[in-house]
């Protein structure tokens, strides 16, 4: 058995006589090649810290004891496994990582598709079969850019239909997401700002990082051409692993590190510093197969159907590993549908542009080779069940974080960034313009209760006001009266016939049922006395006769009025008739004519004057009381009232010897008493009225404003009896009047008794109905 040497970088077994690894071209004897890599060729004036970092990177490789366990296990697995055979998961248990790898590789391929079409190196690589796939070494000059794991889809042996939904959705999402090209100019210093702030030399880095082989281009055995550097994609940059698949900064993705190494920047510093000088001369790849070729063959053989360029499998790179973990974490967030936690500050602050072109690495992980911490990484099911663990940054890294990373992110911004569309064709996309949720946010404005500080007294006032207002609008319910039963026709007809018969009997008989009145009221006596004594005051007494009678009541007072007028005419009185009723002037004329018929010597047209209608009622009476000649312009005959009055010797109200008021209404009598009587207080005012207005005028009689009063048929009979007029009694009318009143009184009495008996004995009524 020949002596073999294990490559400290790729862990492959090499003959002991080889100075460099036949797989990865890494020096197999670091001690012999120790010493810094000359950097004089770098045209860029690197900062001091970066130069020092370069020195650090060229330190002697860590020994095998210093490697982490998982890397050692990886190396051992590499020794035992045949690199010539394609790496295929033989069993489902072994291929549990296959979906992850497929996802990562497919994401990388999707990102690489767009720039690959426009970048000449990639086109060249696509046009030509990848040598590693055929077991041939490809000249590095032709593959200036090593095909990364993401540059092609690694077939997992599963048909596309059998892919899990999350992976298919992820692939579809990646296909639809545009990629951006961020060409980097040669010589541009794209060192991130936060890394620039890092001290130039970080000591005390973790061993698993410091022990890694130098990532210089020389050690890797290949160089990147300028053309490849010109076409840089953000996904392939050194900071792309910290970005989301859409090219956006994955501020919400946390790598599932259980523990982040303290000197996290050490591995970055250990990255190879690509300089144009180093990249310009395309090195030729040795014909001896390297470990990269072997791994790429192993993985590319898994996808036999794909024509994509072969994979270059570089040594394990922390950048790709971080990107890989990011994709894994993205899967968690998509699966759980939760808002991913915030990204560590150092990830957020990593600029998108960098000079580094990481090589996509498909780690040749198999189940047995996985480190323990990676083997315990959450699977799809576990990811769905558990939330992503929160990364714990070391204190020194916490202190290095920019302020923006520490500052709390506004709620609205974080909400918008982390929103994932859950429905529609854009389901699963993040950061979609919010449409429906914004619209659904609108709701009824909140009702704010307004509470006033009011006292009890004010409350009482408010309650009172409310009751008043409500009472105004509340309709008052009318009392529902019982429907009045109509009088039976028989009763009405019987009463009517009875009354007519009685009245006719009284008119016909002319015999009163009672003796004629012999007892007279005092006002009637005064009235008769005043009328019959007017001649004693003036030989031709001037009497103002006010006729305020409706035609219907005239028969009641006609007898009394005519008798009085006859007595006045016999005294040669000058009668002046006036009325405030439109039709009463004719009635007055009628009464005068009837009286004059009984006094033939009295010349009505000469000794009397009918002023006719006086407009304005009470107002007209007031004006007439003041100035009779001005209030009335013409008489009923059309003569000038002033002249006619002058002929009678009347210039004013005071020229009248008496006022005789004939009325059937107490209101009209009151107007005379209120408007005329004050100006006629020294002369008698006599009233002939109907029976219904007599009670109304009684107070005026008792107060002396009315000197004499006779009312109705009783007053007519009383006056006749007082004046001893023979034949003036009108006994037939008096008899009919008395008989009619007694009959009505008797009917009312009987009706009242009947109703009372019905109320007292209701049962008898019911019995009779039965």
């Amino acid at each position, binding site marked *: 058995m020949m002596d073999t040497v294990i490559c400290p970088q790729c862990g492959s077994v090499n003959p002991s006589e080889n100075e460099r690894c036949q797989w990865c071209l890494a020096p197999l004897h670091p001690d012999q090649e120790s010493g810094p890599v000359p950097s004089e060729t770098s045209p860029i004036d690197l900062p001091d810290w970066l130069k020092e970092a370069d020195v650090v990177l060229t330190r002697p490789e860590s020994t095998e004891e210093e490697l982490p366990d998982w890397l050692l296990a990886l190396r051992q697995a590499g020794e035992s496994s045949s690199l010539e055979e394609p790496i295929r998961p033989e069993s489902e248990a072994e291929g549990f990582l296959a979906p992850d790898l497929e996802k990562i590789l497919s994401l990388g391929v999707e990102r690489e598709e767009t720039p690959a079409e426009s970048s000449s190196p990639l086109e060249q690589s696509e046009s030509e079969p990848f040598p590693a796939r055929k077991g041939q070494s490809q000249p590095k000059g032709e593959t200036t850019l090593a095909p990364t794991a993401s540059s092609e889809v690694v077939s997992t042996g599963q048909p596309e239909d059998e892919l899990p939904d999350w992976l298919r959705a992820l692939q579809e999402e990646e296909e639809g997401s545009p990629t951006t090209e961020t060409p980097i100019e040669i010589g541009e210093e794209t060192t991130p700002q936060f890394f620039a702030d890092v001290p130039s030399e970080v000591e005390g880095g973790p061993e698993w990082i410091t022990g890694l082989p130098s990532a210089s281009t020389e050690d890797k055995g290949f160089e990147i051409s300028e053309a490849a550097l010109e076409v840089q994609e953000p996904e392939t940059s050194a900071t792309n692993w910290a970005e989301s698949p859409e090219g956006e900064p994955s501020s919400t993705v946390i790598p599932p590190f259980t523990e982040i190494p303290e000197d996290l920047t050490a591995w970055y510093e250990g990255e190879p510093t690509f300089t144009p000088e180093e990249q310009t001369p395309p090195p030729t790849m040795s014909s001896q197969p390297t470990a990269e070729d072997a791994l790429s063959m192993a993985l590319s053989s898994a996808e036999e159907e794909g024509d994509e360029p072969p994979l270059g499998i570089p040594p394990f790179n922390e950048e790709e590993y971080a990107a890989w973990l990011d994709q894994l974490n993205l899967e968690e967030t998509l699966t759980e549908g939760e808002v991913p936690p915030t990204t560590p500050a150092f990830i957020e602050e990593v600029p998108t542009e960098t000079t580094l072109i990481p090589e996509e690495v498909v780690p040749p992980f198999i189940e047995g080779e996985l480190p323990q911490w990676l083997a315990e990484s959450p699977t799809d099911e576990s990811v769905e069940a558990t939330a992503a663990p929160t990364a714990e940054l070391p204190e020194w890294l916490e202190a290095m974080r920019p302020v923006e990373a520490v500052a709390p992110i506004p709620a609205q911004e974080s909400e918008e960034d982390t929103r994932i569309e859950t429905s529609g064709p854009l389901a699963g996309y993040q950061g979609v313009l919010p449409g429906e949720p914004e619209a659904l946010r609108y709701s009824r404005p909140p009702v704010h209760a307004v509470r006033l500080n009011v006292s009890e007294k004010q409350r009482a006032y408010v309650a009172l006001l409310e009751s008043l207002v409500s009472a105004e609008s509340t309709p008052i319910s009318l009392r529902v009266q019982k429907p009045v039963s109509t009088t039976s026709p028989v009763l009405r007809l019987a009463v009517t016939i009875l009354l007519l018969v009685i009245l006719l009997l009284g008119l016909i008989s002319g015999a009163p049922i009672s003796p004629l009145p012999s007892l007279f009221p005092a006002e009637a006596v005064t009235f008769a006395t005043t009328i019959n004594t007017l001649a004693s005051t003036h030989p031709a007494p001037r009497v103002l006769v006010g006729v305020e009678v409706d035609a*219907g009541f005239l028969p009641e007072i006609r007898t009394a009025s005519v008798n009085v007028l006859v007595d006045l005419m016999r005294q040669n009185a000058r009668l002046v008739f006036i009325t405030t009723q439109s039709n009463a002037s004719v009635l007055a004329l009628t009464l005068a004519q009837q009286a004059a018929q009984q006094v033939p010597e009295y010349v009505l047209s000469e000794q009397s004057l009918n002023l006719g209608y006086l407009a*304005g009622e009470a107002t007209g009476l007031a004006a007439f009381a003041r100035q009779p000649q001005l209030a009335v312009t013409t008489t009923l005959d059309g003569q000038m009232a002033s002249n006619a009055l002058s002929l009678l010797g009347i210039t004013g109200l005071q020229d009248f010897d008496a006022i005789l008021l004939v009325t059937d209404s107490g209101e009209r009598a009151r107007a005379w008493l209120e408007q005329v009587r004050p100006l006629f207080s020294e002369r008698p005012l006599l009233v002939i009225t109907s029976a219904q207005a007599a009670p109304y005028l009684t107070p005026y009689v008792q107060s002396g404003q009315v000197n004499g009063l006779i009312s109705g048929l009783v007053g007519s009979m009383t006056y006749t009896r007082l004046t001893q007029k023979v034949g003036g009694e009108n006994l037939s009318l008096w008899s009919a009047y008395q008989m009619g009143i007694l009959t009505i009184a008797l009917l009312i009495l009987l009706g009242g008794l009947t109703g009372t008996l019905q109320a007292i004995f209701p049962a008898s009524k019911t019995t009779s109905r039965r």
Partner: protein
Amino acid sequence: MAMRSPIATAVAIGVGVIVLLGYLFPLPFLDPLRILFLDWAIILAAVAGLVAILNLFKVHWQKLSAPRNRDYYSLFFILGFIPTLVLGLLLGPGDARIQPLITAIQLPIEASLLGLLTITFAISAVRLMATRRSWISGLFLASTIIFLLAGSGIFLSDTAPSLIRETLGALNLLPGAGARGILLGIALGSLLTGLRVLLGIDRPYSE
């Protein structure tokens, strides 16, 4: 609150005060103004009467010419109104040919209405206890019977018992007492109404 119709209110108050002062203080310069205002009021009242007559004719004309539910009783009004107006304007109200329009038509009709009213009241009083049995109804019927007897003149003779005569005489004071109360109420109401109008509290002219 803004005053409604301030000019009308001022005019009403001013005229009322002048007329009132003219009644209370018969000063030489107030009396002509008061009489002038009264003359204007009479003229306005006469015009108002004329307007009322024309409005009455208009209403009955509209009822008669309505497209639906014509009131043909309005035809009698129009047939009576137009001849009376024409004859009155031509002959004058004092003409002997005009008097029968009142004495032969209006007077019998109104008298008949009063006679019909008498019979209706009598029948209602007869059935009052049958429809509304209450002490008020009984009291009303009792008072009606008493005053009918008192007004019939039966007990105005010497032959009537003195007790009855004295009783009826005492009962006759009750209507006078009631009428006095009514007149006092009317007087106080008129006084307050006049004061409210003069003070501008009531402005019936502005509505």
